[in-house]
């Protein structure tokens, strides 16, 4: 029984969700109360996980593990969820979608992600995945009076269910051909001569690629990003991506470790296609949320390039990449929440034109974020790309490195276009001045991190390098 203390974060999280649900139901207009409780829950969870950060355990006959790798991702998820909640508060209130279920469903999806990351067993993994996905469907359709939000929820549901189906089919094939659902057992049995396992690997990879919106399974991303309420988009763009990368790395490292020659070309292709499509398709966008959708497709491509190397250094670089990506995306969504004209939130790039003369802080932040997204030194985004390409070149995948870096040039074009709109164009109409402390705090903090990252760029690496040494 004492082993159950390992599960403390998950148990605490589930109990907290039920208790908060009851509170939410019994109190009227309970949104504010529930949100405050949820802040507390997240902070407590971070502390709990931090407390046992380096200890590694396995539970339930090795089907559930907890080590510094899973703990790192759990903390990353919690921190980004916390900041997402902070920056979305004003938006949610003004849009009248302050249902207390929002933050609860968000927590539920986090519980699902915890299970996905920690699972060492296909069945448990699938349970976590479904818990996460179902919560995300609800979140996408949260603005229930809005046609677009409903459409995006439905679209996401249909396509994601298909991907889950493929993934489940892969899991069953894998069980059939290796005789086990345990990751390590699968690794022992999924040798190179096991053709069935290769098929299963492809199906599972497709399902996972869908979840992180990598090309060619990205079609849902722009529509869902655009249609969902921005508060939900900011969550979508960040937290499920962390989980996706964490899970892909775990799958590649443990059950499919022997199949590296087979999944490597697939991942290289997915990564290249994502980089190129993310760069090219974003050029024509006029809606900033769609643009971020394409840019996130591109960024997932870079993160997957690290995984595609199949080396520890590559995995580490992907983890660093996704961490920096989280900071940049939180920052850019914080900026979107400041784009308000006469009480309405703007989503068009044209609305940004010439704001530099009236909103120096917002413009300089966007400048930093966009140059960082484009990967220009000395900002943090450069180091993210630098580490990834270090590991890619180490594995002698020169084509991936060169095409990847060339696509950064293409993607630089549309980031520059936004900067051009902000700085070079004439002012049309200034934004309302808002006093949203949460947003300003998040924005300044992340910009500070992005600028000062170069002073001590191995900060993240030092943490990440300890994770994967098992």
């Amino acid at each position, binding site marked *: 029984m004492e082993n159950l203390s390992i599960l403390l974060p998950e148990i605490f999280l589930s109990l907290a969700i039920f208790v908060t649900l009851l509170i939410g139901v019994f109190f009227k207009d309970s949104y504010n109360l529930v949100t405050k409780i949820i802040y507390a829950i997240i902070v407590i969870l971070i502390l709990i996980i931090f407390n046992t950060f380096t200890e590694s355990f396995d539970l339930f006959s090795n089907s559930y593990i907890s080590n510094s790798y899973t703990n790192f991702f759990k903390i990353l998820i919690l921190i980004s969820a916390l900041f997402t909640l902070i920056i979305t508060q004003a938006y949610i209130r003004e849009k009248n979608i302050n249902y207390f279920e929002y933050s609860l469903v968000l927590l539920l999806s986090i519980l699902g992600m915890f299970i996905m990351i920690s699972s060492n067993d296909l069945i448990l993994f699938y349970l976590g995945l479904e818990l996460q996905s179902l919560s995300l469907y609800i979140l996408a359709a949260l603005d229930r009076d809005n046609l677009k939000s409903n459409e995006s929820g439905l679209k996401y549901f249909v396509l994601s269910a298909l991907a889950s189906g493929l993934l489940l089919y892969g899991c069953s094939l894998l069980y059939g051909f290796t005789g086990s659902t345990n990751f390590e057992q699968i690794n022992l049995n999924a040798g190179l001569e096991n053709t069935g396992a290769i098929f299963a690997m492809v199906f599972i990879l497709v399902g996972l690629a869908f979840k992180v919106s990598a090309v060619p399974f990205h079609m849902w991303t722009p529509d869902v990003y655009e249609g969902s309420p921005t508060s939900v988009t900011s969550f979508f763009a960040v937290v499920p991506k962390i989980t996706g990368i964490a899970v892909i790395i775990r799958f590649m490292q443990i059950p499919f470790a022997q199949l590296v020659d087979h999944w490597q070309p697939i991942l290289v292709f997915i990564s290249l296609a994502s980089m190129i499509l993310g760069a090219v398709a974003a050029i024509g966008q006029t809606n900033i949320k769609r643009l971020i959708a394409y840019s996130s497709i591109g960024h997932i491509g870079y993160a997957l390039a690290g995984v595609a190397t199949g080396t520890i250094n590559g995995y580490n670089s992907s983890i660093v990449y996704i961490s920096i990506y989280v900071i940049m995306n939180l920052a850019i969504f914080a900026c979107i929440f400041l784009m308000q004209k006469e009480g309405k939130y703007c989503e068009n790039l044209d609305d940004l034109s010439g704001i530099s003369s009236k909103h120096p802080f917002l413009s300089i932040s966007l400048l930093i974020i966009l140059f960082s997204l484009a990967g*220009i030194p000395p900002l943090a985004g450069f180091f993210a790309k630098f580490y990834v390409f270090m590991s890619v070149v180490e594995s002698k995948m020169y084509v991936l*490195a060169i095409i990847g870096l060339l696509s950064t040039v293409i993607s630089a*074009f549309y980031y520059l276009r936004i900067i051009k709109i902000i700085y070079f164009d004439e002012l049309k109409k200034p934004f309302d001045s808002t006093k949203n402390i949460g947003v300003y705090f998040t924005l300044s903090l992340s910009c500070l991190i992005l600028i000062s990252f170069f002073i001590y760029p191995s900060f993240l690496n030092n943490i990440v390098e300890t994770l994967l040494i098992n």
Partner: protein
Amino acid sequence: MDFPILSLITILPLVGAIFIFIFDNNQSENKNTIYVSLFTSFVNFFLALFLWYSFDKNTADFQFIEEANWINGFIKFKFGIDGISILFIVLTAFITPICIISCISSIKKRLKEFLIAILVLETFMIGVFCSLDLVIFYLFFEAGLIPMFLIIGIWGGPKRVYAAFKFFLFTLLGSVLMLVAIISIYWITGTTDVVQIYEIKIPVEFQYLLWLAFFSSFAVKMPMWPVHTWLPDAHVEAPTAGSVILAAILLKMAGYGFLRFSIGMFPIASEYFIPLIYTLSIIAIIYTSLVALMQEDMKKLIAYSSVAHMGFVTLGIFTFTKQGIEGSIFQMLSHGIISAALFLCVGVLYDRVHSRLINSYGGIVNILPKYAFVFAIFMLGSLGLPGTSGFIGEILVLLGTFQKSFLAAILASIGIILGAAYMLWLYKRVVFGKLEKKELLELKDLNYSETVILFSLAILTLVFGFYPNLILDTIHVSVDNLISDYQNSLILNLLK
């Protein structure tokens, strides 16, 4: 370790910029901003002079070395200078205050942001010349794009957006290939420390591709024909101070890069690619001179003349003779002064008449005598008249080239004649002739700050023209060392 003067000299402008950014929120009153930026840039200039003074000219080793762990112990932060880089640092520190003085009157909007951009750019430029680690070098080399992009885009002319994008994307495209090469070098040699790479020597089979990757970056930045097309656009659209920095310093980063990285790290490949460089340089010299001859726009003409002058620089570097390389360095420094001054001269006219077209002027010698005088000095310097610094650079480069290739030297000499043609013709059309245009009659001659700037540049042009040893003394030992290292590697390769 001694006092970290290189870090200080690099960081100081940035500190000034941050200071302006944080403490000066008074939009209407720009006085404090100007004082702070002038103060930091002048202090930096004097620091650079002090650095030059305390620099030991008798050794080819790197001096004032600073090292620190940077990325996980596998990439070090390393600063250090030798006889070649010290002069570029001094040039940068000298040009920046001049830009700041010149922009005070000519920049009408957002002066504060402009000064911040210039100061940040100065940090990045000095960083490029100080760094002895490839990653650090790349960091500064690329980071310079951000402020320059903004300078062209915010304060530029009517087609500024196009010019800024072209500048940014061209340079970035060249540079990402260099980044791949840098990372590859790390995995080949296990370090990105330039001094160590010189000693380890990169295996010959890798050198060719790596050389091409570095070349792609430097050729764009230099700029060499046929990737020079961003330069005229950027120059024409950039504000005067932006053009000055672009011509005087940013272009020199590429020449410096060839000297420090391409030759030092890939001697065999450098030897192999000599014909390519010669061809491109000669085409640049002759073709762009011809193009310059036909320009209607003064800034464009000077921009094309820059491309031609940079052709001499690449030609000189790849002669691998003492005269050629010293001539190239001298040419870069003298071009830094002269082209800066020429852009300032155009800026003086543009501020008064708001036209850069040659045919909107004529006969201004009658009303602007002081201006006509300094303009003449720079014009003559640019075409390489003996007695000006332009002459020393070109004659040394040609001396070097004659030893290697007679044909290239002859063709390059044609470029000098063409250079004289377009410069003299420009001067004739703008300054001489009859004063017919009415709007020119009211022009005022140089004001106080313009006089100070232009005359100090003119004096430097003449001083370096009459006493080139001031510069050559500093670089002799380093260049000797560069050439002997290069020849040793060639011999070693032959013996294998």
